[in-house]
């Protein structure tokens, strides 16, 4: 483990300038991913950690049907927000389905978006073949035992999963990410924030080095929308998803008039299921519609021996959450 300099930031612009000017510098927020990778796994080796946890990026405010959430709000704080419970309960469900109470008190919303994959090959520095860690070195996961890996957006180059629960409803809601850089601020929809691994799995999102997430904006769905999050996993609590699904439906007279669906546990990024939404929108809220939506969502998977089971599991997860949210079982 390489020594690093610790710097406590008290001004966002200065922190952005400091990290942008130093290729060896990284931000430190809740630390639940970063310190794990730096101190324990030794696969990330910054020369300088800039602690941003004292920056004033903490508020949750509601204005014009948009919920603004500071990047340093913790998972527990967002889960306890009254507007979240009332208007987007599946965000609360996803938050409380993730990690443990201790980790949720530490982990921030900005950090949740940027959490690194749990791929065991990525996190094991003795494994040489990892295109995400060492571009061009190959992918041990596609050849070796794999289970907690992606089947959507994956390729021969990388099957590393984005393991966030929170990001699944956030991507369904068309959340916007506000970013500060040395040249000013910009905003990116969460659906365009992540990039597919392609031939460069080391590039995971659109952030330039030194850019800082300052807040996210969650557009609240129309009144009458019902939502839910379902997480399927190997044990009842404190475990990453095998598959998960977040659904928000507006149903009028038995017809789905607005549908948002996203998947977790299956994608190299939080996976918006637009093809499934097209099937759902305008269709009757019925079992056959739900099954057709599930088929559309899993139309083009990339699997290895250990992950093939996820195709059917993901379909059943989608059908189940649509049944739950709509109240229609058959």
């Amino acid at each position, binding site marked *: 483990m390489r020594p690093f300099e610790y710097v406590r930031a008290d001004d966002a612009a200065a922190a952005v300038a400091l990290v942008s000017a130093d290729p060896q510098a990284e931000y*430190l927020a809740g630390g639940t991913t970063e310190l794990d990778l730096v101190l324990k796994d030794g696969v990330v080796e910054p020369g300088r950690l800039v602690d941003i946890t004292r920056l004033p990026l903490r508020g949750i405010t509601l204005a014009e049907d948009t919920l603004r959430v500071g990047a340093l709000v913790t998972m527990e704080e967002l889960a306890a927000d009254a507007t979240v419970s009332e208007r987007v309960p599946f965000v609360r469900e996803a938050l409380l389905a993730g990690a443990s109470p*201790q980790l949720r008190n530490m982990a921030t919303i900005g950090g949740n978006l940027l959490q690194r994959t749990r791929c065991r090959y990525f996190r094991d520095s003795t494994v040489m073949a990892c295109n995400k860690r060492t571009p061009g070195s190959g992918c041990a996961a596609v050849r070796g035992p794999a289970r907690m890996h992606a089947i959507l957006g994956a390729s021969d180059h990388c099957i590393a999963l984005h393991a966030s629960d929170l990001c699944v409803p956030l991507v369904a809601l068309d959340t916007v990410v506000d970013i500060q850089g040395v040249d000013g601020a910009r905003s990116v929809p969460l659906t365009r924030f992540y990039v597919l691994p392609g031939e460069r799995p080391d590039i995971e999102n659109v952030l330039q080095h030194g850019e800082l997430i300052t807040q996210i904006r969650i557009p609240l769905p129309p009144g009458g929308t019902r939502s839910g999050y379902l997480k399927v996993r190997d044990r009842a609590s404190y475990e990453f998803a095998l598959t998960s699904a977040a659904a928000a439906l507006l149903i009028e007279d038995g017809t789905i008039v607005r549908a948002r669906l996203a998947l977790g546990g299956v994608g190299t990024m939080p996976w918006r299921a637009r093809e499934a939404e097209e099937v759902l929108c305008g269709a009757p809220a019925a079992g056959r519609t739900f099954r057709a939506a599930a088929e559309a969502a899993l139309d083009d998977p990339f699997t290895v021996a250990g992950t093939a089971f996820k195709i059917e599991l993901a379909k059943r997860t989608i059908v189940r959450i649509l049944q739950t949210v709509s109240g229609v079982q058959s």
Partner: protein
Amino acid sequence: MENTVSADTHVEVLLRVNGRARRLRLDSRVTLLDALRDELDLTGTKKGCDQGACGACTVLLDGKRVLSCLTLAAQCEGRGVTSIEGLAADGRLHPVQEAFIRHDGFQCGYCTPGQIMSAVALLQEGRAGSDEEIREFMSGNLCRCGAYPNIVAAIREVAGRGSE
């Protein structure tokens, strides 16, 4: 930009541990867990997995439960840390400690300080409404001896719900 570190890889940090101010000079990489155990001789907080998976290192930071193994000591500058050694007041055990003894909420005892710190926080959070809720909100604390039923019973008793 406040730079509490000179351009080196050490930090000066002031921790308020169990009500007492402690000033330390540490390598920047030192976790809160290692600062408590190795610098302050507060070895009640245990190092289990040392990777955020087991909960043995749970302490309260400004009253909220966190994992000290994934927290840099430097991040805790000026903050209040409560470890298992800080629970007993005036020589009397905390009610959660007494309940763990009464209900035999441990076997080997290694996870127990973390279990108790987490249970104290859970009760403050109001998460002891049912056995199911206690189990869910204690899920970040693993016990490889399997003392879970007795741990739940101890927490249930302190929550004032008697036996179910």
